[in-house]
């Protein structure tokens, strides 16, 4: 816990001051028009439309170009008819559940925040990625994740970020820019 807070304190001034370079942005409109956001033009985008409609989980996954593991941002709306997560509290509890976690994972403190005049909850997590995946002896790469959960009148939004620790400062600046532009429609 101490380590992750120290990491965030180190990152915060640079992000707030906008020192890190951020890429050109373009507008993204989610399937069903459930939200819009400005997203980096040169990041890869993956929108699961059919599966999303079926699972009542709409949105987009974004990946920084040319990097493995990439910096990644997910912007997801969970509909009120989502089969598992009827409330944002339940989803938050699942995200923060450390049972069967990986050794060394740390879930940070849950705090309040505001996104586009909406009340939201946020926390960070130190975790790991395994490269190559499904391999006998993968490299264990330290990752930083951040989650922002925005309750809506119906359903809720989950904005998340992950990045290799070494690249987190640069990618967090992009995530902050996306969050600032995020406009929920529900």
């Amino acid at each position, binding site marked *: 816990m101490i380590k992750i807070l120290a990491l965030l304190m180190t990152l915060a001034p640079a992000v707030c001051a906008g020192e890190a370079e951020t890429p050109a942005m373009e507008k993204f409109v989610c399937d069903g028009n459930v939200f819009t956001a400005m997203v980096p*033009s*040169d*990041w*890869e*985008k*993956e*929108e*699961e*439309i*059919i*599966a*999303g409609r*079926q*699972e009542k*989980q709409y949105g987009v*996954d974004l990946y920084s*170009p*040319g*990097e*493995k*593991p990439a910096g990644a941002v*997910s912007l997801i709306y969970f509909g009120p008819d989502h*089969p*598992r997560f009827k409330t944002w509290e339940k989803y938050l509890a*699942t*995200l923060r559940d450390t049972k*069967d*976690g*990986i*050794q060394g994972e740390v879930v940070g403190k849950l705090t309040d925040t505001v996104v586009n005049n909406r009340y939201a909850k946020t926390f960070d997590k130190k*975790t*790991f*990625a*395994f*490269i*190559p*995946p*499904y*391999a*006998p*002896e*993968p*490299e*264990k*790469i*330290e990752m930083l994740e951040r989650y922002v959960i925005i309750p809506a009148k119906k359903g809720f939004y989950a904005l998340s970020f992950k990045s*290799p620790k*070494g690249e987190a400062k640069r990618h967090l600046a992009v995530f902050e820019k996306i969050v600032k532009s995020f406009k929920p429609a529900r």
Partner: protein
Amino acid sequence: MKKISYLLTLSIFSVSLALPAAAELTQEETTLVAACKANIEDGTLSPKEAEKCVKTDFFPDSPLFKKLKTEDQDSLNYILKYNGVITELGEFFREKPEECHIRQRFIDVLDESRYQKGCLLCDLQMAPQPEKVFPWIGKYYNGSLQGAQKMSLTWANAGAPRAAMLNNFSVNQARWQQMTISERTAVIMAETAFAGRKNYPPELTSCWIVDEDPVSYMRHNIPQDILNAIEAYKARLMPPAGAAGGKAGGTGPDSSRFAAANAKIKAATGKDGDTLALLGEMFDKNTIPARKVDTADKPKPAPAKPPAGKPGAAAAKYELPVDKLPLVAAEIKTRMLGGTSTLDNKPRNPAFSGTPWEDEALKFYTAKGKDGKPLHDLNFQVLPMAKTTNGGYCPQHATDGCGKDFPAGSIAVNKTLIEAWMKKNKVTAERLTSDPKLMDRLGRHLYVVMVHEGPVHEVRQDQFYISKGVDNKKILDKEAMAFGLSTLSLKNKLNGPEGALYRREASEFDLKTLKAVENGGFRGIKEFVRYYDLQGVQGVGAKTIKQLEYGLKDMELRKTDAAYGAAPRDPANCSWYVVRNCTDEQLLSMTQKAYPWYETAITRQKSETAMLNAALEQQINQSSLSKRLKAKKIKELRELNGEGL
């Protein structure tokens, strides 16, 4: 964009295939059919419109799909295959792919299309040369155009800067633009050697696509006319046999380099090398990059992690000798299916149990015929495999197998995976093969991989497609299901009485995968496994329908065109790529499978998503149920003890 040429192709066989006109379609339906056809016919090729056609208007469970299939299958074929391939390409560019990803995809969809009879993009005049697809990219995804051009090795980017040497190969701009990306790559490799450089240029190394040794690659990809010109050029440079040294021409390399290369080849093989062998010998082989695939982009390891084990005495201590592999495979199989261990002559319960897909697999693997022999035994072996995979399943249709000792219809676990576990737990091969408890632990460690490859890939997927009589094709959704279901099996074990034992042996990657499916369901796990660069279901579907039409066309030509000839050329080598080899019966069988595959795969994708989410829900409930039961039990005990009353 040019008017397309496939109309002529269609007209050849449309008369005999045409079913009654679409008289029963409503006005609204007729408009939808016309719009989806027009998107192709008038050359608009809008990816948004195509997606609407394929994913909404003519999705297999839509009433219009069923109606048009009955009333006017030609139109349905036409709409699905062309709108399908445009949808697939649109989805690719919509994701803003990185530049190297574009080259890899172009190799798959443009270069490979040369060899395919069902080349949809060729019909649309968007393949096989990359220049043909640029106008479409410029129109719909202009932001990717520059990267696509660079990665396609266009004349401006890659040809013009070496025009002088290419001229020696009789290659000018016009000839260059007739070539595919693989051909351009091979010619640049030859040019590099002739120019006397030992390393390949950045145009190639920035995204290395050569997946075999350079000589073979050049041999397979340099067009014959250019190879002839290269031979002639080399003959001008190379002095008579026996001579060495001396300059040969202003633009060529020192001919002594040819002589030196030949001397090396002759020493190794006893024979003179041909031109391409000489060119291949001239490179510094240490500088040839690994093929640019995901796993090649190794990030920095976590600083805290100790360096990976080096070969040597310590590593050798935990090696599994080849003669022990059958014993280990047999013992692991016993732990998955149940039976008696030969190590202690005691019975083991089957690990494959407790979830619907494992119960189904156990029934499948243990079913016996009247003679008491298994009807479809679990063919399982431990093999040395690539270090990037834990295991694999070789599908039934791969009749030539999937490598040495890896026959069709069998599953394999990577020997290295077992050795990594041995190393971590300091277990030597001798101890492993003599201690039944250690073998039990290894079984629990391999359990997730075994479920992934056996119950899911073999039974739930391969056997499903076989039972439906359709092909089992590679698609990302199937891989997502294999990861999702195998980790839900692990979840089931963690919830059960042996939870602590399985938790002890679970790999961190398995736990991470489980978290992905718990947090995001099917969508979450599909995102997690995106590193598999497989074609999506829509693109595979479009190609399938095109192949169907090609088969129908060939059958029609056999009947109606005496000059075409009706006799099959080589039935033993019948495939979609050479349908002339096939008998009428083989072709009929192949064509009859195409539509069923499309309908089966698309609806399967939907039902599997629902199934995975339902199973996840069940596991989550089971987890909380056990907590409730535990709480109830504690309450009962307290009451019995007189506490809390």
